[in-house]
C-alpha cells in the first residue's frame, strides 16, 4: 500500500531542501569569489591595474569564470545524485511513480531546448558524465568584459604620470572600480533573479528543480 499524499509531501521536502542548498551554495560562492577577487585586485601592480592588455586582469577573469563553472558542475552533479537517491527512496519502490525516468529525461531535454531557444550556450559539454548520469543542465559561466574599467584605467594611467600621489589615488580608485564591477558580475552569474538569458546559477538550478518537482508530483 502507498499514499500519494505522503509521497508528495516527501517530494516537496526534497525540493525545498535542495532549493535551499543551491541558494546557500551560490551565496557562499558569491562571498568567497568576491573576497578572492578583492584580494587579487589589491595585489595588482600599477602596470597591471592600468595596462588594458594586462595578463593579470585576464587571469583573474579566467580564474573566476573557471571557479563558477566548477561550482555549476559540482551543483549539477550533486543535484543529479540527490534526485536519483530521492527518487529511489520515494517513488522507485512504489507502483505510483509520478514520472518515469524517460519522462524526467523529457523534462531535462526540454529545458536544454528552451535554453537553446533563448540563446544560451547549453549543449556540448552541458551533460558531463560523472559517477551517475548528469540530469541537471549546467549553466554556462561567462563573465562580462570590463570596458568601463579599461577606459577609466587609461585616464587614470595618464594621471599617474603627473604625480605619485595622484597615481596612488588613481590606482586605488581604479581598483575599487574593478572590485565593484567584478562583484556585480559575480553576483549576476551566481545569484541574480533576472529571468533573461543568461540565467544565474541560482535561477537556472532553481528553475530546473521547480520543473523536476512538477514532474514528480502526483496530480
Amino acid at each position, binding site marked *: 500500500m502507498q499514499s500519494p499524499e505522503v509521497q508528495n509531501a516527501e517530494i*516537496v521536502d526534497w525540493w525545498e531542501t535542495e532549493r535551499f542548498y543551491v541558494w546557500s551554495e551560490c551565496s557562499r560562492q558569491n562571498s568567497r569569489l568576491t573576497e578572492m577577487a578583492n584580494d587579487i585586485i589589491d595585489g595588482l601592480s600599477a602596470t597591471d591595474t592600468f595596462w588594458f592588455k594586462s595578463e593579470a586582469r585576464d587571469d583573474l577573469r579566467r580564474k573566476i569564470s573557471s571557479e563558477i563553472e566548477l561550482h555549476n558542475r559540482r551543483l549539477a552533479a550533486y543535484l543529479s545524485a540527490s534526485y536519483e537517491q530521492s527518487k529511489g527512496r520515494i517513488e522507485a519502490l512504489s507502483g505510483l511513480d509520478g514520472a518515469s525516468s524517460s519522462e524526467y529525461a523529457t523534462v531535462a531535454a526540454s529545458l536544454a531546448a528552451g535554453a537553446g531557444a533563448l540563446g544560451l550556450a547549453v549543449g556540448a559539454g552541458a551533460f558531463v558524465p560523472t559517477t551517475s548520469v548528469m540530469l541537471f543542465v549546467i549553466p554556462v559561466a561567462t563573465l562580462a568584459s570590463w570596458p568601463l574599467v579599461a577606459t577609466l584605467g587609461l585616464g587614470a594611467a595618464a594621471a599617474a604620470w603627473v604625480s605619485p600621489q595622484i597615481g596612488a589615488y588613481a590606482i586605488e580608485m581604479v581598483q575599487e572600480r574593478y572590485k565593484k564591477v567584478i562583484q556585480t558580475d559575480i553576483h549576476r552569474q551566481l545569484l541574480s533573479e533576472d529571468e533573461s538569458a543568461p540565467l544565474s546559477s541560482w535561477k537556472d538550478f532553481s528553475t530546473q528543480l521547480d520543473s523536476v518537482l512538477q514532474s514528480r508530483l502526483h496530480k
Partner: protein
Amino acid sequence: MVSPQIPFHIPQQFIAAWNSGALQQVGALLKDVETGQIVGHLQETGAFQNAIGSLAGGPVGSVANVTGQAVGLAQNHLMAKQLMALQSSLGSMQSMQMLTAVSSVVGIGVTVASTAVILSKMQAIDHKISTLEQSLEKLPAEWRALNLRNTLGEVETQLERLQEVPTRKDAGPVLNKVEEQLHSGFNALHSGVRQVVAEIEIDPEVLQTLLAALAISGAAQIKALYQMDETETALQRAQMQSSKMLALALEMPRDKLSQRLVGGADAALQIAEQASQVRLVMASRPALTQRLIDLGISGPNYLNVLEDEQETPLLVLPAS
C-alpha cells in the same frame, strides 16, 4: 484494553523492526524501508492526550503558550518516536513524564483531543494574534481585509457548538453546520498564510501562529467528519487539506523564507521544519481514512475506541 472490533496492534510488535532500521516513520505512517510500502498507521489515543495534559498541567495549561504550541507541532514527529521507544523500553505511562513540550492537538493520525482542548488551543491562538496585532508596527498590507480574528471567532463558536452535540436533540444538523464553518475557517486561514508569505518582510511569530491555527482547524475538521460518520467525505477533505498544504509549501520554500523572515535563516529553518511535519501528518490522514473505509469501521466507533484507550498512548493500525 484495545477494542477487539478494530485490529489495532500495540507498537511493541513493531519495535524490533523499527530498532533495526527496517521501518521508518513518515508523518503518522510506518513504512518498510526496503519496499517503501506502508506497514501501519500510527494513531494517538486518549492515554496520549491525558499524558500531554498532565505534562503541561492540564488541558488548559497545555495551551498557555502558543509559541510553545507551535514548537509542539514540530516535535510531534520526534515525540512519536520517543513514545514508541519509551513504550518499548519501560512499558509504562510513567515513562512519559520524561517527555517535555509535547502539547499539540494536530494529532498523530486523527486527533482524539477533546473539543474543549481544541477550543482552548484556538482561543490561545486568537489571543496571540490579538497581541501581535497590537504589538507589531508593520502588519502585512492586506491583513485587516483578511479579518482573521473574525474567522477565529467563528471557528471558536462552532467548536463551542460541537461541545454541545452530545446533549442536543438536533445533533445532526448542528454537526453539519459546524463542519461547514470549520471548512470555511480552514480556507480563510489558508488564505491568511498565503497572504503573509507573499509579503516582502514576514514576521515569524505571525506565520508560526497562523500555521498552528491552520493545523488545528484542519484536525478539528477531520474529527468532526469522523463524528458524523462521513468517512468518505473525511477522505476527500483530508486529500484537499493535504493538497492545500502542498500548494502553500510551494509558495514559502525555505530559501524564500530565509530572505524575507525577520530572523533570517535560523527562523526559516525552524518554520520550514514545523511546516514539513504538519504537511506529513496531514498527508498521512487520507491513507488512514481509506484503511478504515476498507475495513468498514465507522468514524464514531473509531473515535470512541481511541478515546476509551487509557493504557497505550500510541496504537498501530496495520495497513493490511
